[in-house]
């Protein structure tokens, strides 16, 4: 990065600090005009010049550019910007003007980086601690030695402990890599980074090690190694979390099948399509919300859940009443019929919604990630883990402790005798299949958050779902839970070593071998009851 640019930025920062009103005199109009040229080098130059100008309009203009709110007025090529809401303002004066046709000033990654730097320096002294923190982190990444004086000033003023720590780390990152800094300072900086102890700190240290004097090099070496140990432990934990997360996805996908197949014995090849229906329900709900009530967007999943359950459940009941009901006592033929159903559902969705992916957005509480103890936990995965367990427990309770569950199990074990006990088997069959399908639909809501919403969605889960249910032991809900988590974790523990493809092959081989040991799955039912 050219030094001139940096100096400009720093000047700007310094000015903002000292005398905001002073530079009013500089003429920013020609600078701003370069934005209108729509050529990246000009935009870049304009940013630098603007920052260097120290003009009060610089900050709002740069912020607007960063957030895509800076425009060229098509009529006269004047540069304007606007707040999230509110009128257009002329960049030169900040004066509000009437709405007019505009086109945005385009940015590229390089421009975004310049902006980050310019704004980052500007933000080091911002009143909002969150923005100061952000600026500190940006500085940590960019390690601009020229920012050091400003950083020191900011450090002195800082009261917030978290921000202060971030400033110290940023300072350390700059110092440790500055070849012209005194070795002792650099060693001290290395210790700060060693304390931080994450992947980024390690990266900085590694970069600093290049051509470092002996003592510093030794110091860095120990730190890097200490961090490495810590990180490899963390990696284990991280892999476990990934495994748990994959496992819960498998659980969600499979748990409905644990009812229709595990409990009812229907080889339900249309299970995946029930998941798909749930996902499309989510899409429709979000679409309706986008159109009619955008403020409800964060609640979209909450609305979609019961709807998906109902829609998929109703479709399931319709399938049961129209087809499956004719096939009791011929479990294998359900494979054929449900395969047919699945083809029809896929094509129906393709016809109605088109063959390509549909966008289902993450509500804000499911976006981004949470960093704890150096582990990155993405929110959508966390929610899905919790949700999968909740669904599992609710189902377990229904099956075990409600009279519906009891009747359901009785019907499946001996349909004729159950009828003679006064149980309306038709109704129960329909409800049970509806329950399994409804749960698949609910799973679809969750899976829409991490996967494609396309007509192929169901196909991509059907095999894994059957694996999970069978591996766990047909008819055992607990088995399904443990199997899903086991396969998920095994997969994720293998993946870093074997790669995704080989890892998956190994998991399959593991399943084959494991079933030799336990021919009726993990949680096999035992005793006469099963053999007879």
């Amino acid at each position, binding site marked *: 990065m050219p030094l001139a640019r940096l100096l400009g930025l720093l000047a700007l920062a310094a000015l903002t600090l000292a005398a905001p009103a002073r530079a009013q005199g500089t003429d920013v109009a020609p600078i701003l005009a370069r934005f209108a040229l729509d050529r990246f080098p000009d935009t870049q130059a304009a940013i630098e010049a603007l920052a260097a100008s120290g003009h009060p309009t610089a900050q709002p203009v740069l912020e607007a550019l960063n957030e895509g709110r800076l425009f060229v007025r098509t009529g006269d090529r004047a540069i304007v910007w606007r707040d999230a809401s509110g009128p257009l303002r002329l960049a030169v004066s900040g004066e509000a003007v009437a709405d007019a046709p505009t086109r945005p000033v385009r940015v590229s990654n390089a421009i975004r980086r310049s902006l980050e730097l310019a704004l980052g320096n500007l933000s080091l002294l911002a009143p909002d601690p969150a923005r100061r923190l952000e600026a500190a982190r940006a500085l940590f990444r960019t390690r601009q030695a020229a920012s050091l004086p400003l950083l020191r000033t900011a450090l002195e003023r800082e009261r917030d402990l978290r921000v202060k720590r971030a400033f110290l780390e940023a300072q350390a990152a700059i110092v440790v890599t500055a070849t012209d800094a005194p070795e002792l300072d650099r060693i001290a900086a290395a210790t700060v980074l060693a304390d931080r102890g994450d992947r980024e700190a390690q990266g900085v240290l590694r970069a600093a090690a290049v051509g470092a004097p002996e003592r510093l090099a030794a110091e860095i070496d120990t730190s890097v190694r200490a961090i490495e140990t810590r990180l490899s432990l963390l990696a284990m934990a991280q892999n476990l979390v990934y495994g748990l997360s994959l496992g819960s996805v498998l659980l969600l996908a499979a748990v409905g099948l644990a009812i229709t197949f595990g409990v009812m014995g229907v080889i339900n090849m249309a299970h995946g399509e029930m998941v798909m229906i749930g996902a499309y329900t989510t899409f429709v709900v979000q679409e309706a919300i986008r159109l009619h009530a955008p403020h409800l967007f964060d609640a979209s999943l909450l609305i979609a859940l019961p709807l998906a359950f109902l829609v998929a459940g109703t479709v399931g009941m319709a399938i049961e009443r129209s087809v499956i009901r004719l096939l009791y006592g011929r479990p294998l033929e359900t494979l054929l019929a449900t395969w047919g159903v699945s083809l029809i559902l896929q094509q129906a969705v393709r016809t109605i919604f088109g063959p390509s992916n549909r966008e289902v957005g993450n509500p804000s509480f499911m976006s981004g990630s949470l960093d704890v103890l150096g582990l990155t936990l993405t929110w959508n995965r966390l929610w899905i883990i919790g949700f999968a367990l909740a669904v599992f427990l609710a189902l377990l309770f229904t099956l075990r402790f409600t*009279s519906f569950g*009891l*009747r359901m*199990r*009785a019907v499946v*074990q*001996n349909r*004729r*005798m*159950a*009828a*003679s*006990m*006064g*149980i*309306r*088997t038709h109704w129960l069959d329909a409800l049970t299949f509806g329950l399994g399908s409804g749960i698949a639909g609910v799973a679809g809501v969750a899976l829409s958050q991490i996967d494609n919403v396309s007509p192929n969605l169901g196909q991509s889960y059907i095999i894994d779902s059957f694996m999970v249910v069978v591996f766990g032991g047909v*008819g055992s809900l607990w088995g399904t839970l443990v199997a899903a988590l086991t396969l998920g974790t095994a997969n994720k523990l293998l993946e870093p070593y074997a790669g995704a493809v080989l890892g998956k092959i190994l998991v399959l081989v593991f399943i084959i071998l494991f079933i030799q040991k336990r021919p009726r799955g993990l949680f096999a*039912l035992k*005793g*006469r*009851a*099963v053999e*007879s």
Partner: protein
Amino acid sequence: MLSVDTIDLHYGAAQALRGVSVEASAGRVTCVMGRNGVGKTSLMRAVVGHQRVSRGRVLWDGADVTGLGPAERARRGIAFVPQGREVFPLLTVEENLRTGFSVLPRAQRSIPDDVFSLFPVLSGMLRRRGGDLSGGQQQQLAIARALVMRPRLLVLDEPTEGIQPSIIKDIGRAIRYLRERGDMAILLVEQYYDFARELADTICVMDRGEVVMAGETGRLDEAALRRHLTV
């Protein structure tokens, strides 16, 4: 009051019942006898609705139930102890018993105490799965399960099969008790003549899908009856 009115029953092309008529009324035990394969079980299946009749009617409580499924018949007070026990293998003993609650109003959903006094082993095995029980225990469970429903017609297909002598005696006593209570009709298939004679008010003998003898227990020609039971 149950009245089976000249029914025919087919399995595919094979005919198992020809013009069979039988009656059973509250407070009385009707016993069906006959050699293997003459159609006793088929008759019971027709009564409880497990098998459709191809001709004739089944009347219960004055209504024609011929077209109703087993669940509806159960809801009208018909309980069935099938030949071969057919307990729910993966439900626990207790759950097996509770399946009988479906026909009961909420207030009555409890297992009557006399079930356990009749079959004491069951009370010790409530948590065991039905399918794990020994043959005789399963048979006891099947009878108990029917009793939980508080039926007004109890259909028993060879209920003593595989049960130890002392409990057979108890079952005999229980049937007698139920008969004497007077509110339950009992239709029983039994091969063991002494047991049948002691319990039955009416005996009905079948051969090759037809009723060949029927009448009050005391008035039947025992020699003729035994002839029908020998090969």
